[in-house]
């Protein structure tokens, strides 16, 4: 590859633009539909949906049971479903067991409940290291777990998208479901952080 001249590699932004033009001209995509999809994922499909699921599970034991039994169905009950949201399995973090999610193959992720994956989730370093040294990687991300806490690394595939049900922080008994949801972060639902009391 030469750095300049007619054979120089084109900026990837231009390839994306060129592809979009060609697809639009051929009627394969409608820019309006596409804009709607992007806006939806950027603005509306966010970790907040997952936070609502977690808050419901914290406040409704029956819902929690259904969620752990069949995550996809229980999440659908709250109206969240769609692309990449199939086959969600919810695992519970406790005082003695900590789950953390990775996708070693690519970046499978439950979009409808967690929004788009953060850049570190897609990074090869995270994907390979968290399997081999979960305690170290979590510590580097600011989560220090006691030595007697068992860590389970959950590897996402096209068949299973994991969602972590974090521990409800102590001292939040008086909070409403909506207030609880506002405490839940995306990172806690991936298992790289805990939920903190306000």
């Amino acid at each position, binding site marked *: 590859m030469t750095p300049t001249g007619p054979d120089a590699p084109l900026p990837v932004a231009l390839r994306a*633009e060129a592809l979009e033009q*060609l697809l639009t001209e051929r009627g394969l*995509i*409608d820019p309006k539909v596409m804009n709607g*999809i*992007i806006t939806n994922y950027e603005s509306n*499909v966010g970790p907040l*949906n997952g936070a609502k699921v977690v808050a419901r599970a914290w406040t409704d034991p029956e819902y929690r049971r259904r969620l752990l039994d069949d995550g996809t169905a229980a999440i659908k009950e709250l109206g*969240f*479903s769609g692309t990449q949201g199939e086959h969600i399995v919810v695992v519970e973090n406790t005082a003695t067991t900590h789950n953390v999610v990775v996708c070693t193959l690519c970046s499978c992720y439950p979009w409808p409940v967690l929004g788009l994956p953060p850049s570190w989730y897609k990074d090869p370093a995270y994907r390979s290291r968290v399997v081999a040294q979960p305690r170290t990687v979590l510590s580097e991300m600011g989560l220090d777990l006691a030595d007697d806490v068992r860590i389970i690394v959950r590897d996402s595939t096209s068949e299973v998208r994991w969602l972590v049900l974090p521990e409800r922080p102590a001292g939040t008994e008086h909070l409403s479901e909506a207030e609880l949801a506002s405490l839940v972060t995306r990172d806690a639902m991936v298992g790289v952080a805990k939920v903190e009391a306000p």
Partner: protein
Amino acid sequence: MTAPLEIEGPAAPPRSNGELVFAEPWESRAFGMAVALYEAGAFTWPQFRSELIARIAAWEISGAADEPYNYYRLWLAALEEVLAGLCAVSTDEVTTRARALAGRPEGHDHRH
């Protein structure tokens, strides 16, 4: 197929709980194209996903000496591959069009 829009007013997702999803605008376009085509039934998600996995694996094996890891660059390449396989848009057509776009007059493209 996209997730429902329902989100209450005061509950507009807290940005501290969100993230900068796309580093550059073209990344969101690449994302949107793939999802739009998938939702329109142009290809199945496993078709696209396997191409993406292949690209990521190839990048990891190559040692990536000549370019840093960029998820959406590989995503776009996978999308181009799937579309070429469907005879929808060829790689050469994309290259030709991109070169034409590169030749736009000064000021048209501020991305440099």
